[in-house]
């Protein structure tokens, strides 16, 4: 288990909800903090990194845990 400051479980939610909820959550966090995002939507796997790189957040890692996809997103400045 990696270190993170907060967690967001988007299991069962489809696009656009995983990205939308991640944005709302991470906007309230301080720069440099890490959010662990769990999603079951395969569509989010391409969209989360594409969105993050555009707005300046960093995906520290992503992995599959069973039928879930887990992303560690570090909030940009």
């Amino acid at each position, binding site marked *: 288990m990696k270190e993170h400051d907060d967690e967001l479980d988007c299991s069962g939610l489809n*696009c656009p909800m995983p990205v939308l909820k991640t944005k709302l959550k991470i906007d309230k966090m301080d720069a440099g903090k890490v959010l662990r995002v769990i999603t079951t939507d395969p569509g989010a796997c391409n969209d989360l990194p594409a969105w993050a790189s555009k707005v300046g957040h960093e995906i520290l890692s992503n992995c599959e845990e069973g039928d879930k996809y887990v992303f560690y997103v570090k909030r940009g400045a």
Partner: protein
Amino acid sequence: MTIFTAHELYSAIEEKEDFLLLDVRNEEDHKRFSIEGPNEVMMMNIPYFDFIEEPEEMVAQVPDDKPVRVVCAKVGSSEFVANLLEGLGRENVSHLDGGIISWGNLLVSKRINSESDDYEVWQFNRPGKASCSYGLVFEKEMFLFDPSRNVDYYLQFAESRGAIITHIFETHLQADYISGSPKIVEMTGAVLVAHDGDYSEALHKYHSVTDGEEINFSTEKGPAVSCVHTPGHTPGSMTYLIGEKYMISGDTVFIVSIGRPDLGKMVVEWAQMLYDTLHRRISVMPDDLIVLPGHYTDWEAEADSEYRIMNDFATVKKMNEDIYSIAKIDDFVTYIQGNMRNQPEIYGQIRQVNFGKLTPCENEQNTMDLGKNECAASKHGGIENA
């Protein structure tokens, strides 16, 4: 919120309606596969997450002088963006039911032969794949050629003609799309007709077709299907002639270009086979045969005025003179090698599915099966890999 179906989208493109297609998938997915139809479509790609970040700015980028049709991968994000557009005062906004997958699986049927014939030849065009399957209906029986995965469509079509599907002909083992044959065989008990050259490895039961064989309707009436072995694109490639009028050419003869013989990785051997086929089996066919190909790449060059992918064989030979005029086998191999390009990685897996050796779930099959074909031998006849 107004929704539209993939078929309604196709009709709007065919009828040259003035609208903007707004694709809200991420840029990578948009580049890999986007909507192409019989006429030019005005298209914009703004990912839905850009609308999440900067709603007003993004909406301002969308022209407001025409109806907007929104498309995404499934349906949630297009609905989200369509709602946002409406919330910010835009009118005439709608979104695609079922997302890009429903476009990828869409089939459009067109009657090929004259209404006065006592049999019916139909083209089932799949714009998302740029591929065609075919139906031959006589009395209460239907022969089906190269069906794709949208099996319900074919079954409903047969029912609408008052016919049952009795035979399914494969022109070859497909590498670029998942065949619907096994499922239709399972549901109808139809006979699968295929050549050992491609299917000997397959786990499905099939009738092993031989060169020169004729297959008739059960009443022995109506047009016969003459089976011609035309190896090259694959070793088991078949061309099926309907009543000496129509040539269902699979991936051997296209309206523009021919089927590439390098997908099996034995370029020289298969190219030589294809050369032999073109000269000894194809070129000698009557000029007035109507070519009904398995694929196309360019609507403008390959469709007729009714948006059917067809032309007579004399015209096809003239359009591809650079290929048909090659008089030496070595020059032909050189031509093929000079036009070679990578094949999508997924083709290997699709072959395994079509052999019956791999059975992915529906969702995976939808993803594997999405995207335009890469089957033409000449570069101008296909899209390049990203």
